[in-house]
């Protein structure tokens, strides 16, 4: 217990940990019902084709198969797109990407279901398709959709570039090619649909039960009220269970509806890797200029996102990329253009950072390039331009309230890096050492464009023994939302956190709370809980006051008791207060609601306040590079984060440590090898995510000087923890090898190519 006897800022055991560590937590795959069928999907293995007919006759002959359904069997709308109605649930006349579904199957065993799925045959007329977003936007390119391949363009236009350029003495230009990433949550996509005449319950591994509710209702043609979605314990998500799970859920619900039996759909890993959304690959072109004193004068950024075959959330991802393109730097003249293009590649979706990591990687690469051109240390160039006490206006013209912590994060991280020790000694060999720095300006919660979703619902029910049940609309997927909600509720009610049970979201217990994304889980659940507790106290405080013999306004809660302000000895147990409420039949349940504040923003110019407030962070990476083999070891990462207020220390640190290591994978090894839209490495043998043997030593500095508008002044951490790492690693590698690398990931061939001139076998290279 810290903070005056509350759990705030402490590290009490997470409420979900004990069940998880003993194997008692029931994920979807651990739940089987009598009569339950197993689903499978028949997926395309080409990325572009016209579809003649789909033949399910052989699939139906497989023993144990109960149903095979195609597009014509969908009772409602055959549509699954979150924002644009561009994605059919089941293929009609076109295949647009590998993984498009011809049919769904339900059978008595998973083996029979998947065997049946492979027996579905489709008559296809292959099309060339388009697999490069630059080609996709050229005149005459194959159109992925009738509307053309340009989905949307976003801009930021601020200041006079021409005038500013005249004052720049150094201009650097670069073209960055930044690859995508697979979420690689340990639990593949999973859902279970349970039909009852006229309505259906879906249990799903997901981030956004309300998205699934909408998707299933549309596909089955049911009112929203007839679709109940309960979030199952979720084995990792990272954005991969934001938009995507509506697809498997709709498939399972469809089959359950047809067969009138529970249907469970578990994705085999290979299908999960091949068919689900990815972090967007981006091309980012930069032209930035600075004057002799090392002050940034202008920045021009052109971003192109490969949306893949369906828009999904790509425009929303692009919106954040667009607003994040300049970073936490003071630049008077800014031009940003962000375009989204359809291709026949796997489709991009939400992934931790949501478009910001790619543009951050680019702006931090350019800062280092500029520093080298100017003969300044990269840290020094950042000091001269970073937002801080004197510079408080962002690239979109938003003036931030003091204190602005980017500069403080920079100094803290640089100091922590110098003091840090590597986790392990290097194996024998020739190693070059380098240090790299990267900053992020993270817009907390949803962008202005998605603000209608920035809301949340909570229910708090006081129990007769003084414990409390809490329901929220935001999900636990490993990040710690349960413990954050528990901490906030326990602090507000003044009771021990073990007496607060937060249950997983269920669409029938709380109102639509929007998605659990944008690092807003603790923020949105916490503020809704605080509102519910405020409402409860309007009823509780008068009862407590009567029992204590004081005024309701004097009632304080803490230590599992109500007490009188200024008279700490005068207390009554919470249990007794609630029992008195029950005896008098006073309502012991309250709802709470949160919505973000309205703000000004002009989508045409990109100017205004895209976000309400910001979290800043700086990561400094130290690496060792074997220039002959192109191997990189990340030895140490120092992370300084502007967190507002710590709610739960272990959960917060866990987000930072996990974010850094996941970003290290993206930076170095996690290459999506696509050939004509098909993933060539759909397995963990050749899609390499970091292991315990790769993890760097990590030092963390938490800055609590600048409160956010989250509960108790907190700010989100899920994404800021990820965003700067890859850029810091890139800059460290470039520092080590003395060459610029403009591609991500920095795989051995990319590094060897970059050091080609000094490589002992350079004469063999083309």
């Amino acid at each position, binding site marked *: 217990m810290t903070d005056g006897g509350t759990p705030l800022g402490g590290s009490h055991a*997470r409420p979900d940990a004990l069940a998880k560590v*003993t194997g008692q937590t029931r994920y979807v*795959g651990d739940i089987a019902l009598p009569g339950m069928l197993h689903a499978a999907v028949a997926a395309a293995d080409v990325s572009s084709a016209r579809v003649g007919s789909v033949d399910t006759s052989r699939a139906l002959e497989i023993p144990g198969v109960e149903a095979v359904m195609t597009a014509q069997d969908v009772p409602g709308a055959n549509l699954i797109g979150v924002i644009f109605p561009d994605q059919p649930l089941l293929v009609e006349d076109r295949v647009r990407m590998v993984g498009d579904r011809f049919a769904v199957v339900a059978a008595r065993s998973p083996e029979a279901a998947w065997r049946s799925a492979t027996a579905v045959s489709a008559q296809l007329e292959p099309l060339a398709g388009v697999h490069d977003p630059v080609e996709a936007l050229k005149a005459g390119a194959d159109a992925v959709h009738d509307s053309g391949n340009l989905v949307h363009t976003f801009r930021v236009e601020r200041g006079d570039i021409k005038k500013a350029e005249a004052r720049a003495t150094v201009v650097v230009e670069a073209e960055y090619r930044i690859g995508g990433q697979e979420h690689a949550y340990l639990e593949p996509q999973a859902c279970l649909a349970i039909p009852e005449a006229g309505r259906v319950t879906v249990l799903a591994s997901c981030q956004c039960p309300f998205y699934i509710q909408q998707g299933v209702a549309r596909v089955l043609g049911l009112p929203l009220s007839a679709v109940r979605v309960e979030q199952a314990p979720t084995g990792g998500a990272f954005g991969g269970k934001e938009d995507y799970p509506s697809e498997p859920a709709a498939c399972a619900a469809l089959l359950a509806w047809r067969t009138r039996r529970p249907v469970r759909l578990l994705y085999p890993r290979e299908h999960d890797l091949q068919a689900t959304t990815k972090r967007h690959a981006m091309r980012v072109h930069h032209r930035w200029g600075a004057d002799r004193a090392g002050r940034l004068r202008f920045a021009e950024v052109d971003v192109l996102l490969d949306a893949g075959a369906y828009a999904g959330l790509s425009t929303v991802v692009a919106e954040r990329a667009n607003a994040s393109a300049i970073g936490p730097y003071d630049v008077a003249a800014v031009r940003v253009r962000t375009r989204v293009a359809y291709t026949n590649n796997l489709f991009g979706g939400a992934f931790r950072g949501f478009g910001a990591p790619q543009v951050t990687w680019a702006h931090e690469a350019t800062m280092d390039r500029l520093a080298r051109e100017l003969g300044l240390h990269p840290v020094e160039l950042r000091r001269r331009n970073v937002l801080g006490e004197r510079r408080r206006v962002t690239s979109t013209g938003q003036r931030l309230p003091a204190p602005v912590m980017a500069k403080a994060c920079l100094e803290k991280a640089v100091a922590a890096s110098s003091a840090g020790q590597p986790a392990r000694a290097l194996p024998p060999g020739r190693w070059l050492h380098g240090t790299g720095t990267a900053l992020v300006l993270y817009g907390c919660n949803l962008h202005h464009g998605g603000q209608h979703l920035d809301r949340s619902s909570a229910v708090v029910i006081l129990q007769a023994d003084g414990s409390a049940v809490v329901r929220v609309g935001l999900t636990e997927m490993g990040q710690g939302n349960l413990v954050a909600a528990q901490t906030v509720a326990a602090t507000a009610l003044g009771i021990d956190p073990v007496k607060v049970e937060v249950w997983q979201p269920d669409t029938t217990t709380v109102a639509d709370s929007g998605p659990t994304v944008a690092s807003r889980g603790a923020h949105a659940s916490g503020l809704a809980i605080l509102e519910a507790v405020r409402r409860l106290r309007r009823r509780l405080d008068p009862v407590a006051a009567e029992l204590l013999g004081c005024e309701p306004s004097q009632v304080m809660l803490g230590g599992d008791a109500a007490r009188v302000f200024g008279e700490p000895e005068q207390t009554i147990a919470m249990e007794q207060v609630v029992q008195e409420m029950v005896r008098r039949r006073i309502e012991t349940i309250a709802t709470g609601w949160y919505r973000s504040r309205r703000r000004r923003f002009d989508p045409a110019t990109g100017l205004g306040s895209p976000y309400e407030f910001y979290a800043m962070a700086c990561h400094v990476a130290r690496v060792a590079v074997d220039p002959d083999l192109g191997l990189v070891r990340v030895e140490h990462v120092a992370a300084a984060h502007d967190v507002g207020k710590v709610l739960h220390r272990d959960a917060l640190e866990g987000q930072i440590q996990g974010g850094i290591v996941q970003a290290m994978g993206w930076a170095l090894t996690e290459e999506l090898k696509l050939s004509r839209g098909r993933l060539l490495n759909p397995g963990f043998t050749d899609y390499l995510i970091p292991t315990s043997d790769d993890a760097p030593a990590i030092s963390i500095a938490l800055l609590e000087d600048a409160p956010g508008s989250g509960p108790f002044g907190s700010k989100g951490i899920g994404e800021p923890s990820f965003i700067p790492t890859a850029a810091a690693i890139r800059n460290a590698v470039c520092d080590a090898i003395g060459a610029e690398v403009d591609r991500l990931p920095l795989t051995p061939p990319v590094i060897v190519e970059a050091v080609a001139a000094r490589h002992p076998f350079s004469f063999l290279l083309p």
Partner: protein
Amino acid sequence: MGSVTVSLVLNGEQRTFEVPAGRRLLDLLRDDAGLTGTKEGCGAGECGACTVLLNGLPVPSCLVLAASCEGADVVTVEGLGGDRPLHPLQRAMVERGGVQCGFCTPGVVTTGAALLEHGITEPLEQGRRLAGNLCRCTGYSKIFEALQAAAREPGDD
């Protein structure tokens, strides 16, 4: 496919199962014995979520045929503590924040328990030998902390 009879000691208890000859140990545990604590993350021996102790050795149970376990001693996450409610590593994982989404956790604590059982307490050695258990949430830091904390506990075996 014919069926086979497999007798083994499962979490300290003598058990006999009649299973199809091609049954994986993972499926015997989850579907026949009802021990769903062991997870399937990839089905290809790449992720470690299905790790169990087979005669004391941590193995991915998705790559082990049930029929090959005749006479074997198998311990799953449910049996890790033995007579105790929790193995010291399980307790340390709870106390040190080593658990996030939890899907890798049964495999991690099972491999970790084997490391401790064999006196492997040096963090780098632990990191090297835990590399078959992928975790996507924690960055491994707090798992290492939990391993260190559990190693410091007085052995009560």
